């Protein structure tokens, strides 16, 4: 057993950190430190910088532009981005659709889509969930019917994250309604600018516009936009969902938020003393820090196993990542909001005209309540935490 990073890995961490320090636009960093979601322009600009460096698609094979990193290097890279904080490469392109095309796509599809995905010339979004197919994803109804050289798509997708920015959507469509529900699904690529597509915003409880409903009304795409075999789309979906094993742990992101929490708790007064001196507050914060340390070690265990035996049986530790990762992030977001006290409730932006002109609320308080409300989503998406427990009971506990 050797639980430390190697000298090369530590050197790699320094290299990544130095590159981020030198290349990340200051305005983007400040925006993220304030707890706000990056704008489209920020994400695109940063991914192009990463791509120029050869670092935009860590998970892809070298042939398609991947840097050829070990699992430990990928982890270090992800963690450094989260701690900076910097935007992550767009997950829909880099972690979801890209790997599916690499694994299941034709040579022509790879040539056509992958370079533009890596450089974020095309922004992709994910068309999986439907009003009637959430946790039970395979119950989806959106139809694609073959008509000559085209697929004709009719139906509705929902919770489509950042569809308002997207150039393309990857879809799960029902292509055989007679088959068992997992066996009649196909994975289809569709441009977002076609006639018949309507994007309707869903405003979430904090007031943000992240997710959308997307309607398809006789939308026609060429047959070559099918990825993999017809009616075998569920294999693509399972591959895609199983691919992201560490993404939801977000240890670096939580560490960055805890650092922020400590700074805010020094500046926030409670009973005439800085909040950080309050034993109850400190104790709650420390409980989360301990859980985060354990989660970090759990991530390391999974990575170490991956590096040794890429094809090995899933490690039960993997199922911990989503549940604990999201619980920790939600816990920190709640503590951040509570640390800001009454000032957490200011809506909008501190620089907005007419807002907080006398600076009675500190700038750092803005958006903390919003993030708390927004982050309740974390235990719902990506397979709700209850679905994760179902999976654990079946896959690891034999129940």
């Amino acid at each position, binding site marked *: *057993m*050797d*639980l*430390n*990073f*190697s000298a090369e*890995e530590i050197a790699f961490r320094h290299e990544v950190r130095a590159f981020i320090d030198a290349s990340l636009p200051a305005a983007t960093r400040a925006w993220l430190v304030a707890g706000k979601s990056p704008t489209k322009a920020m994400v695109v600009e940063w991914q192009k910088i990463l791509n120029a460096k050869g670092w935009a698609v860590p998970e892809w094979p070298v042939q398609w532009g991947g840097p050829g990193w070990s699992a*430990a290097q990928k982890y270090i890279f992800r963690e450094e981005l989260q701690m900076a904080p910097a935007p992550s490469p767009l997950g829909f392109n880099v972690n979801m659709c890209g790997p599916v095309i690499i694994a299941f796509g034709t040579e022509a599809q790879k040539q056509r889509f992958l370079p533009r995905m890596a450089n974020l010339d095309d922004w992709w979004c994910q068309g999986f969930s439907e009003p009637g197919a959430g946790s039970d994803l395979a119950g989806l109804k959106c139809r694609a019917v073959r008509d000559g050289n085209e697929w004709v798509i009719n139906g509705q997708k929902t919770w489509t994250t950042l569809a308002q920015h997207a150039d393309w959507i990857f879809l799960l469509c029902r292509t055989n309604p007679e088959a068992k529900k997992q066996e009649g699904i196909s994975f289809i690529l569709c441009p977002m600018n076609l006639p018949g597509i309507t994007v309707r915003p869903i405003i979430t409880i904090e007031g943000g516009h992240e997710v959308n409903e997307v309607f398809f009304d006789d939308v026609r795409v060429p047959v070559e936009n099918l990825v993999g075999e017809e009616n075998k789309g569920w294999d693509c979906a399972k591959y895609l969902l199983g691919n992201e094993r560490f993404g939801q742990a977000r240890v670096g992101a939580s*560490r960055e938020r*805890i*650092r*922020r929490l*400590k*700074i805010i708790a*020094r500046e926030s007064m409670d009973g005439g003393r800085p909040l950080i001196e309050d*034993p109850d507050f*400190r*104790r709650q*914060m*420390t*409980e989360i*820090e*301990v*859980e*985060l*340390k*354990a*989660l*970090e*070690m*759990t991530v*390391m*265990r999974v*990575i*170490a*196993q991956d*590096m*040794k035996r890429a094809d090995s049986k899933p490690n*039960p*530790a993997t*199922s*911990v990542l989503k*549940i*604990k990762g999201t619980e920790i992030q939600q816990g920190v977001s709640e503590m951040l909001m509570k640390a800001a006290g009454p000032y957490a409730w200011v809506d909008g932006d501190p620089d907005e005209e007419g807002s907080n002109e006398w600076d009675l609320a500190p700038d750092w308080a803005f958006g903390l309540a919003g993030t708390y409300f927004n982050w309740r989503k974390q235990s719902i998406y990506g397979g709700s935490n*209850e679905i*994760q*427990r*179902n999976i*654990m*009971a079946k896959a*690891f*506990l*034999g*129940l």
Partner: protein
Amino acid sequence: MDFDLTEDQSLLADSVRKMFADGYGFEQRKAYIKSAEGWSTAMWAQYAELGLLGLPFAEEDGGFGGGLTDTCLIAEQMGKALALEPWFSTVVLGGGFLRRASAELRRELVPQVAAGECKLAFAQVERQSRYDLFDVATTAKREGGGWVITGRKGMVLHGDSADRFFVTARHAGGQRDHGGIGVFMVEAKHATARGFRTVDGGRAAEVEFDKAHAILVAEDGLPMVEAVVAEAIAALAFEAVGCMDIAHAMTLDYMKTRQQFGKPISSFQALQHRAADMLVALEQARSMSFFAVQAAADSDADERRRGASAVKVQIGRSARLVGQQSIQLHGGIAMTMEYACGHYFKRLTMNDSLFGDADHHIKALADDGGLVKAA
């Protein structure tokens, strides 16, 4: 980064596992508890034969040069077997001090310890000290060319069978000062030990030192105590993971066989989710036990102390959840003395309280600034 065991480590864990498989059935263990010592002298002889008692000591002192990971792997198996012998007090605690003692003392005692002929114990807890290692009222005074110790220590694990005690005693300063605490060694014949049974089936003692003749091990002893306790916390973490592993596995087996409402209770989602939560707690504890080994080796005493506290918090929280839920999911059967699950729960609960429970350490760690440094 590599979490796999070396071949030697796997062999070690396997041989300990096999020893317990042969010698530590539920009924056998019950008989050991009822014996005069409260543990098995025959097993103790096997520990010595297998080399477990000399493992962490340097080869030049008569040991086998094992590391903390080896000690922890043994501790994990001790947890799975609910072993009763004075291994933890002799090898982990006493051995921790002995490894740091003078060459003269090491040469004298290590071969005896390795042979199973000398059992050690750590006399630290006092009536008022609770979990504070620095809260020491027992006094040490120079007398003639040596030292004498006066005071009473409680909850001395296996103090009734120890041949030598390592004792914290104050030679300077006030009762709660961090300075002025010495570590001493006292032979059992100079002390009075009154043994008793602990709730988990183990043994401990009250020990009285009345101007007891003592050998100085460390004059500024608190740093040494903290270093030994950090190693002990790592061993306890592995022991707890061993106990949790068994308690969880027993619970899953039971859920699959116990029928109610015409089907196994494992088919009920509410119970499945509880079992999944136990797995999350167990895996987080396992991860933290690895960190415990790393933290105990930290050369920065502040980092080491914070790391050890974090370990105690996570292990304690996980142990409570896994222990309580293993009883709950079994139902009444696990409430009985005749069923092993409750014994794991008791051991887990006592494990948490050794060298400070999770509540003690969360407070200590919070007061110490936590683990994440503010930018």
